[in-house]
């Protein structure tokens, strides 16, 4: 019963969530069977506290941070909210002129939505930093913004790797520019950890979001790594369990399991990443062969992807395509019926597919953006998964294009 169940069929949606590792599941179950509030002072509480603090040390060691910099949260979304709102409020308290929030236009909604909430409720001004056609941040735009408004900037938030198209962002360059102007940097590294090398201290960022369920841990736990000198206000108020900026009884089993999965994935990365990159390259080649009209979005896979010392352009486990003339939801349904599980990669509102803000920011026309599919690989991915996709794809794309025609999805080039 402690063996994680692999998803049936070809599961190509590891960026949504990836199976728990056996060790992480065992750690979870072991802790879940124990009683203990880590804030209690008696022996039962102390045992729970010890499990939390060992996990904190482990998480810190895995990510190049100090234990005191680890703030456990209930996942990536909470960590992003804490970073955006908490740093904004903290910085503005130091100097009320600091109202500008600089975020890349391709951030996850967990960053964009709190930022725009601040604009609507707390007088923030949001600056969406543009990206190029591959989804990579325009550093010149960031520089210009900082030169012009440095005194008014509360924070910069640029993700480590994009969740849709897998583009890796020049985080170190962002840090260098921002720190020249004394502006703190937050990065959402949810997709990056386990796929590329992520070192909190070496990166120079002031705050970083990580989550467990994208790397073999349980859903519902994550962390914000935050430097001790970073002004950070609380978002969740209460018992103040985590450094006074995050309240809520600590989820000991989830935290322990998170730490185990993280250590495991970081240790496995040097071997796993080149394997994922090779699988991904086969997937990209296979998709292009199956549908010559398919357009790879994000950077072209580079030699360095997944290799130690390489300078990767995109996540080794990510491939993202648009299929002209087809709609993403048609492709998704047809693939699912063929036993292949992928994602349109974009946010859904009540399940209604919206054209991806990431693709639109990259300059992809809306009509083409509607035909997007993301394939993401993980620890359990096999060549068989890729083969199953490539075998199913020609008929799937043909049918989806026929449906696109009757849906009036024309002009994208592929259907006619």
């Amino acid at each position, binding site marked *: 019963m402690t063996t994680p169940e692999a998803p049936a069929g070809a599961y190509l949606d590891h960026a949504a969530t990836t199976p728990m590792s056996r060790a992480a599941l065992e750690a979870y179950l072991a802790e879940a069977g124990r009683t203990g509030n880590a804030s209690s002072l008696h022996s039962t509480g102390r045992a729970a506290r010890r499990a939390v603090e060992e996990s904190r040390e482990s998480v810190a060691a895995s990510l190049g941070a100090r234990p005191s910099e680890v703030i456990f949260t209930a996942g990536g979304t909470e960590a992003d909210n804490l970073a955006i709102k908490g740093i904004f409020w903290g910085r503005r308290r130091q100097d009320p002129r600091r109202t500008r929030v600089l975020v890349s236009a391709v951030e996850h909604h967990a960053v964009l939505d709190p930022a725009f909430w601040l604009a609507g409720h707390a007088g923030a001004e949001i600056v969406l930093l543009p990206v190029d056609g591959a989804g990579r941040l325009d550093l010149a735009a960031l520089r210009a913004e900082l030169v012009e408004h440095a005194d008014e900037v509360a924070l910069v938030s640029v993700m480590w790797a994009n969740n849709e198209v897998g583009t890796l962002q020049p985080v170190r360059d962002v840090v260098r520019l921002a720190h020249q102007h004394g502006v703190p940097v937050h990065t959402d590294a949810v997709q990056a950890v386990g796929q590329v090398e992520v070192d909190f201290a070496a990166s120079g960022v002031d705050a970083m979001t990580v989550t467990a369920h994208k790397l073999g841990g349980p859903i519902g736990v994550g962390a914000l790594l935050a430097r001790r000198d970073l002004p950070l206000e609380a978002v969740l108020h209460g018992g103040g369990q985590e450094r006074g900026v995050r309240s809520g009884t600590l989820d000991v089993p989830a935290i322990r399991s998170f730490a185990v999965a993280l250590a495991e994935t970081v240790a496995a990365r040097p071997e796993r990443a080149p394997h994922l990159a090779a699988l991904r390259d086969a997937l990209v080649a296979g998709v292009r062969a199956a549908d010559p009209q398919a357009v790879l979005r994000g950077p072209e896979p580079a030699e360095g992807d997944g290799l130690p010392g390489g300078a990767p352009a995109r996540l080794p486990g990510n491939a993202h395509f648009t299929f002209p003339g087809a709609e993403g939801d048609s492709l998704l349904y047809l693939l699912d019926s063929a036993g292949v599980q992928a994602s349109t990669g974009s946010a859904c509102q009540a*399940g209604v*597919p919206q054209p991806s803000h990431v693709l639109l920011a990259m300059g992809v026309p809306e009509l083409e953006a509607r035909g997007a599919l993301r394939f993401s690989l993980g620890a359990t991915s096999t060549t068989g998964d890729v083969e199953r996709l490539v075998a199913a794809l020609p008929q799937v794309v043909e*049918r989806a294009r026929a449906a696109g025609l*009757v849906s*009036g999805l024309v002009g994208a080039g592929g259907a006619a």
Partner: protein
Amino acid sequence: MRVLAAMSGGVDSAVAAALAVEAGHDVVGVHMALSRNRDQFRTGSRGCCSIEDAGDARRAADVLGIPYYVWDLSERFEETVVADFLAEYEAGRTPNPCVRCNEHIKFEALLDKATALGFDAVATGHYARVVTHEAPDGTVARELHRSPNAEKDQSYVLAVMGPDRLARAMFPLGGFASKAEVRAEAERRGLSVSAKPDSYDICFVADGDTRGFLRDRLGSRPGEVVDTAGNVVGEHDGAYAYTVGQRKGLGLGRPAEDGRARYVVDVQTSSNTVVVGPAELLSVDRVAAEKAVWFEAPPLGTVEPGWLDDVEVQVRAHGTPVPARARAATAADGTPAIDVELTGRPLRGVAAGQSLVVYRGTHVLGQGTVARAWRD
């Protein structure tokens, strides 16, 4: 068969999907998103298009163990159903948006996309029966019939689909004689929507205020209300918001000189004038309908050549069918039309734009849109 079950989030479509699954079909649930604005249609269970309804549909699909997708048909809905609704009112006619939705959305946009994706049929929770007859040569003829549940019967709003689309439609609730039975079936299967209230009104007019919706979209256009002699008896905010046969909400200050109730007898949008008059002016026994669809080659009657002599026609969703004779005709622009002569009592307040359905007993023979109605 591969069946796409259209799931609104209500109890009827949930049970229809369940019955399709139990009949052994390979079923996928699809909820149609008809508004891009997340809040526009969000008024509890009043319409069929709110976020809560999408969640209810998903929950039902999960209980049935079938895949579930949301298809965004909001653009098509706006371009066809809403645009037609506005244009028809603006032209002084009285549209039925549910008919247009069946015509353009459920049995066109949805059905065509489903067909392209490899589905054999679309199942909906409508109350209507499909009766099949196998001919000696093995071909199967499909007929659209009224539901045995007279109160819920929806054959009237379905007739517009015509025979080609009927061939790919499934109405699993066709045999149900009462809504209570459907609710019991939902409950028996653990579908949480079993006690959900029925939807009424027009789904995109969230608060039920059609006149307010028209004013918002078409603007205020003040004008006069006159009697049949041309005397000004009141004012209005836009003639488009009135419908022939309407009695309530006329806001006429003074009673008629003869003290009798007054009805809208004509809506003249060119002069932005609403004409009111006594009830007898609303009585009609001749109706001409356009954009006709027939379920078979226009059928012939026996008494007089070309005329179907023992039919009934219905001009409102829950209106009473009246005896008539009807024949296939051709409109001035060459498109199929229907001529109707009432043979029993007259109809009152038949407005242009209403859907007219020709029945023989429970059998739907044809459908058209009322172009004009008059007293012979």
